[in-house]
């Protein structure tokens, strides 16, 4: 069932290309139907996983021979982690389309590229053959480029090219690592489960891990390789920013976890502390830089870097609680970032045509766009990590894991949380709650698709915040599965 998410998305993209040129309505409804179908499959997969007696086990979806000459198979499978991220993709896909409802110019190409990107993302989360995973990972790069280059705003061509090149360089690093692993293992297979069993020599692992992990982590926004993220997010159109920050950055983190950490556990132990330090630097740096931004979208862009730092930190704790927290943070941040970009990009920028906080201050947005103001307050609260929202549970777990592994880093990360509060509050007050009570601008009302999209995201983050077991029940057992066993050897947790 889950595999259909991939097929539907690509089929939708192909269908969209065949639609007549000047009918944006047809394009958006087709895209919405395809995304909803994908979401339905993802939800079905999640429910099945929750109800299964062993949610953490790896469930094979498709496993067919593909290119026997190099030992590549078309192998799709899922465990709790994949299911969670597929669910995130489904939600983000639907909501992104809702927030792009107003795209008129070249709508069908927009939505075709969008669905192709979604298909690639689903593919990464469900692939268990390294070649296949890599193929989907790379497939996702080109739609991103075009989405930003054609429909973006500030410095879009530069932002698009930077993003594409950074992603491509990252994946190039991963490719080298994968080829090396394939050759060393000598078993003529690219299957992740098989390769994970192979005992790669320690010296090999030390550099192979770094290559593969950093290659993926570039896309996850690991400091100091994060510089594509703020530029890219700002340049991208709203839906693309939502997807970029919400889902695509998670591709990098997922790849780092699924491939880098699973294949090369010894290398992981060697580099654990260094990467954890980089992660925490990212948390604090991202938050601090966000504090001084004048452009609203840049604030959110840097906040994404900061939040992804939590994901990477959680991964490095090598404890079940830290890793579960990291996965939950991937989901949580995906939703929250989507919400933040939706407000900033679609609700505010599309109407006010400015993202400068100083200018916005004079527009008294809390009176002219009350829905946007309330949504941003909720999104901001969630972003700060206030309890009741998903971010709190995720950050709590990450910090708990971090305390056991790196107490000093944990305290620095807590500092990052405080700075996070500061910049969120600053952006919120500057953009929405100005002193000048009399000034009132008139903007078009918030449309129905925007409201539905915003409410969906708010409901998602609240639901997980109040009842985290919805996801924790599938995430935590996944780290007990046989695939993850090598991670715990030597960690003793």
């Amino acid at each position: 069932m889950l595999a259909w998410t991939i097929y539907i998305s690509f089929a939708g993209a192909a269908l969209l290309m065949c639609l007549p040129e000047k009918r944006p309505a047809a394009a958006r409804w087709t895209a919405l139907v395809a995304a909803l179908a994908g979401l339905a499959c993802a939800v079905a997969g999640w429910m099945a996983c929750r109800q299964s007696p062993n949610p953490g086990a790896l469930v094979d979806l498709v496993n067919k021979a593909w290119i026997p000459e190099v030992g590549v198979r078309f192998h799709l499978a899922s465990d709790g982690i994949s299911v969670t991220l597929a669910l995130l993709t489904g939600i983000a896909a639907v909501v992104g389309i809702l927030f792009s409802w107003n795209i008129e110019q070249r709508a069908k190409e927009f939505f075709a590229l969008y669905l192709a990107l979604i298909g690639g993302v689903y593919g990464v989360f469900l692939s268990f053959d390294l070649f296949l995973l890599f193929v989907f990972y790379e497939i996702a790069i080109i739609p991103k480029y075009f989405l930003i280059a054609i429909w973006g705003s500030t410095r879009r061509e530069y932002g698009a090219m930077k993003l594409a090149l950074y992603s491509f360089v990252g994946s190039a690093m991963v490719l080298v690592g994968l080829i090396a692993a394939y050759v060393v293992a000598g078993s003529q297979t690219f299957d992740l489960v098989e390769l994970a069993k192979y005992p790669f020599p320690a010296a090999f692992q030390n550099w192979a891990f770094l290559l593969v992990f950093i290659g993926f982590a570039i896309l996850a926004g690991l400091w100091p390789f994060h510089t594509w993220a703020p530029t890219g997010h700002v340049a991208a159109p709203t839906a693309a920013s939502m997807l970029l920050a919400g889902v695509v950055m998670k591709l990098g983190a997922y790849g780092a976890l699924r491939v880098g950490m699973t294949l090369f556990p010894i290398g992981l132990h060697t580099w654990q502390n260094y990467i954890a330090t980089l992660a925490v630097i990212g948390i604090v740096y991202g938050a601090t830089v966000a504090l001084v931004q004048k452009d609203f979208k840049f604030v959110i862009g840097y906040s994404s870097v900061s939040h992804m730092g939590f994901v990477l930190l959680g991964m490095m704790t090598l404890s079940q609680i830290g890793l579960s927290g990291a996965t939950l943070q991937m989901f949580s941040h995906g939703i929250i970032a989507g919400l933040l970009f939706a407000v900033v990009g679609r609700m505010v920028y599309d109407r006010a045509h400015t993202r400068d906080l100083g200018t916005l201050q004079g527009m008294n947005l809390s009176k002219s766009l009350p829905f946007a103001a309330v949504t941003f307050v909720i999104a901001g609260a969630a972003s700060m990590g206030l309890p009741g929202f998903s971010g709190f549970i995720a950050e709590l777990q990450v910090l708990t894991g971090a305390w056991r592994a790196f107490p000093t880093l944990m305290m620095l990360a807590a500092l990052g949380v405080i700075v996070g509060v500061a910049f969120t509050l600053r952006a919120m007050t500057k953009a929405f709650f100005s002193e000048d009570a009399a000034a009132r601008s008139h903007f078009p009302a918030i449309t129905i698709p925007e409201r539905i999209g915003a409410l969906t995201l708010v409901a998602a983050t609240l639901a997980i915040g109040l009842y985290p077991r919805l996801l924790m029940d599938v995430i935590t057992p996944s780290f007990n599965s046989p695939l993850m066993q090598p991670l715990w050897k030597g960690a003793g947790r």
Partner: protein
Amino acid sequence: MTLTHIAQIAIILLALLAAGLSKPRGFTRHVGEYFALLLLASLGMVILVGADNLLLIFVALELLSVSVYALAAFDKSSPASAEAALKYFLFGGMAAAFTLFGISLVYGVTGEIRLEAIANALAAKPAEPIFYVGLVMTLCGFAFKLAAAPFHWWAPDVYQGAPTPVAAFIASSSKVASFYVLARILFIAFPGARTDWMSIIAALAVISMLLGNVAALVQTSVKRLLAYSAVAHAGYALLALLADPQHAWPALIFYTITYAVTVLGAFTVVAVAEQNGGANMRDLAGLSRRAPVMSFCMLVFMLSLAGIPPLAGFFGKFYVFIAAASAAPRLGLLWLVIVAVAASAISLYYYLQVLKQIYATAPGEKTAPLAPAYFTQAAIVFMACAVVGLGCFPSLLLTRITAALTAHPF
């Protein structure tokens, strides 16, 4: 079916396509002579890949080359065409001299011209220094034909100056033929000297990859860009020669065939654009509005050249990298793979620039839709489908290659 048959079939099909897509009436009155020369060149290629002795190889090579020199000059109204042909002829002549000299030295050392016999002769006696000179000279001669740096200087001018269909022909089928015959010579005739020629090939590969990609970054003419990209791709293909024979052959053949199809398609699109405006980057602006299907096919070709999955170019490169990395000693050539991957990453930039012009930039003054001939459109779409198909299901071609290799090993 042997590997040679596969190569010949590919060459003939590509030649047919190139011939069918050329519209010689557009640039010359001598249509009959044009096709005759094309056929002669194709004949040369078919013999080239089937030849089993050095002299026949040389003769076929010359048949191919001379025909192509003449074809390059066919547009009498364009001084660039004449200049290109002249450069090609002069360079080519020198290279041919090198090759002949090298062959004669090899004959002198071994007393044989048949490939297998040469190998036996070399195995029997210890190697003399003069042999290495011959080896190097032969390789340099072939490197010219392949447009491998630093023997590539003719390529940008020829690709840009010659009539576009001719450039397409040179870029596609002659590459297949040249690589095939080089592989034959190296693996059949000189297997014992492997360690020696490996370093030369590796050096050629590295220089080609780096120079080709870096130079392509700054090009404004799409044809020159394709020329430098051809240099880079020659570099990647040369990597395949460094692998162990059982991986090298499939990798090389798959790579060259898919590359040839891709580049033929790209040149055809460029030709259509040229007839309707020009072949600079600026002229491609907004092409997606005027010719959506062709633009999409160009997207396929460019991304395949860049090495984006699930296109044939990606799998070609991937297979070559695997083959090179698996070569004994294990991971010994990994540094080379790293260089290749890095170079490939750089290349995305300029391919995206082309695509950016086509898709993202607003169209210039010309906004009328393009209406190329039916056959051209069908051919372009066919080639794009082939690229996608071979990218998604490379086994279609690979099984045949490996079957041929196992049935008739060298």
